[in-house]
């Protein structure tokens, strides 16, 4: 259960979901929660995430592109960063 309020605006993905982030639907549900919240700013913390699928990373980037909220990314492990870089560097990706 994720609670978002002014005292709790950081979402620790490994704790709330898994150290292995796989599914696009998880991202869609997450951003639905963020977009429906009263907060203007939310932090997604990737501490302890070990694996992120290409699909999960792409859905995060799409959701960041579409949300009107300020969503900050923190503590990206190197291999997670590499997946985001891989998706963003592909010719099909629209920034």
């Amino acid at each position, binding site marked *: 259960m994720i609670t978002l309020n002014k005292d709790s605006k950081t979402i620790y993905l490994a704790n709330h979901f898994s150290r*292995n982030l*796989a*599914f*696009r*639907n998880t991202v869609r549900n997450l951003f639905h929660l963020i977009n429906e919240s009263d907060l203007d700013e939310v932090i997604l913390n990737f501490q302890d995430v*070990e*694996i992120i*699928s*290409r*699909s*999960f990373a*792409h859905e995060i980037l*799409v959701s960041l592109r579409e949300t009107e909220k300020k969503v900050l990314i923190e503590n990206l492990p190197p*291999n997670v960063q*590499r*997946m985001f870089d*891989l998706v963003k560097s*592909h010719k*099909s*990706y*629209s920034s």
Partner: protein
Amino acid sequence: MNTFAQVLNELTDNIYEHSDFSHAYIAAQSYPNLIYTEVTIIDNGISIPSSYEVNNISIEDDIDGLSKALNGLSTKSSERGFGLSTTLRVLREALNSECLIISRGAELVAYKDHMKMRSLPQNEIFNGTLISARIPYNLKKVNYYDYAE
């Protein structure tokens, strides 16, 4: 382990994203004498060819539908479509695996250096999708990012 996890991630996400399934299974069996583990992911969803049809993407036949998926044509967006194509490349080239894909009336058998496709006869058509890989023991460590795009 991470590379194998990436394979399972993409294939299971594909089921949730595209197949409109009611039942799906992952099964694995190790064969010590044959020196491989066979992993199979199977769902009773609408199949890959039907996924194109319900999204109004024209296919000539089921082989064409499976080929489009292997070539990265997504039913959702031009930014998508990497799941099956990348996964098959990783399985064949990184994990030295033999692969079998059956989706409705199309069958693909893939080895490291070549692939064979055929149309299934009417009595073998499978209403769903099956993806199976024989992954050899004693793999050297591989970097997923060397094969992903």
